[in-house]
């Protein structure tokens, strides 16, 4: 798979409870692009991101990661290419220690132990959490958990990085570190966020979601100045 693009074609998704969270989503993110996904609470951002990794499967429509369509059969390939950061780090951290947790992905890829160790150290260092190595994830602070969760994704060395609100709960220093990390990541990136400053700084392109649809897609500066219009339409608060 040489081209790490993400393509959604008319994707619909209805939660088991009957709520239709995605109502026809289509877009193409090409290799190396960094895209911000904006939208109000409940717009469907997290739902959309879960589709990039085959955690949720489209009720109808089609999701492609590079040349690979996301289906049950292709899950292992898709998941080895996509690194997904969950909105709630508590959902993501579950191993007894921080280092075990960061090593979880690489070990599942059956890498040799020295390589696992190298990746764990590199990832923890990248997020500045080396000191937390032997701590238990469950009693870290919210921001520390977030950083460790990011390390867990980085350790998989994904070709496509998909992050759900990576900067929420972070102090300014940690937020800055995450921004620099993403900037240094030269593959495809899709980031759902409420942090408009980060979007403006990192992502040349933005998509805006509302009620399960993408209602705007274009250069971030234009989108952000267009928020006036969105506000007028009742889709954005003052």
């Amino acid at each position, binding site marked *: 798979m040489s081209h790490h693009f993400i393509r959604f074609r008319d994707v619909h998704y209805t939660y088991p409870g009957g709520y239709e969270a995605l109502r026809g989503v289509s877009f193409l993110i090409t290799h190396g692009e960094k895209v911000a996904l904006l939208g109000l609470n409940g717009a469907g951002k997290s739902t959309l991101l879960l589709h990039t990794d085959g955690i949720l499967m489209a009720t109808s429509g089609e999701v492609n990661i590079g040349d690979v369509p996301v289906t049950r059969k292709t899950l292992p390939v898709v998941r080895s290419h996509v690194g*997904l950061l969950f909105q709630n780090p508590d959902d*993501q951290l579950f191993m007894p220690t921080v280092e075990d947790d960061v090593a979880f992905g690489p070990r599942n890829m059956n890498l040799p132990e020295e390589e696992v160790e190298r990746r764990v150290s590199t990832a923890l260092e990248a997020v500045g959490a080396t000191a937390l190595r032997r701590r238990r994830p*469950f009693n870290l602070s919210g921001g520390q958990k977030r950083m460790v969760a990011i390390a*867990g994704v980085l350790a998989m060395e994904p070709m496509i990085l998909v992050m759900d609100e990576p900067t929420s709960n972070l102090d300014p220093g940690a937020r800055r570190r995450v921004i620099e990390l993403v900037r240094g990541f030269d593959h495809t990136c899709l980031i759902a966020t409420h942090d408009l400053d980060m979007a403006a700084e990192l992502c040349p392109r933005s998509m805006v979601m509302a009620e399960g649809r993408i209602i705007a897609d274009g250069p971030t500066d234009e989108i952000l100045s267009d928020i006036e219009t969105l506000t007028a339409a009742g889709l954005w608060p003052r």
Partner: protein
Amino acid sequence: MSDRLQRAILTLNRLEQPGGGTDGTDIIAAPDSRCLLVLTLIYLVLMLSVPLADIERVLLFSVYPIVESALVGIKYTRLLKRSLWVLPLVALVGVFNPILDTRTVFTVYGFTVTAGWVSLISLIVRGLLAMQAVLILIYVIGFYEVAVAIRRLGCPAVMSTQILLVYRYLSVLLQQVLTMRRAVDARGYGRRHMSLKLWGIFIGQLLIRSLERAENVSRAMHARGFTDRLPLSRYRCWTTTDSVLLGSWTVVFIVIYLVPLGTYLSKVL
């Protein structure tokens, strides 16, 4: 309430790691996880299959928790204290024995000791010993490795994963209780007890939420390439020490089980 909960979560999470149950003191000479698992199983099977009335033999089996805890560096008093947890359960099973079984076994200073009492005491001792053996296992290698050991012994991956997930689910459940309890307390205006109706809502919510969390956790595992099999690459190999440990204890257990040491002893004394 919320303090006790936090401590419960802490203990649970500690137990997950090798040496976690020992409150900081390091485990000396931890055996291979498979070795200790097999050893514990042999012990449990033999010790629990001693007839109830044969109380001396059951008592002799206490040599394992006492010596092994010393070998790995856990204080036996700690082990004993923790193992008292099983008492209510065992008592529940055996409490009617003294009433139901009134055959006289022997008399001491005019007190008749009936078969019912003997079997109750025997039940209690067994319960304590079994719990102590299991605690040693979990303290030394940690819950996670118990699951790994099961897998390394050749059991199907589904089994070890199930065990791990049940454990995972337990800590998710406890954490959920804690968060919800805090939420209730925060707006409870100092009321100590929840009304019956609130309890109903609480339990219902708890189930739904922890199911949801469990679902999310499993999603996150799969997102990082988990395929329902624990990765096994990093574990240490079986050594001669492990064989010696397993071999010598097994011999001790079989001797206690087969040879009526108790009767010899009482003859000598």
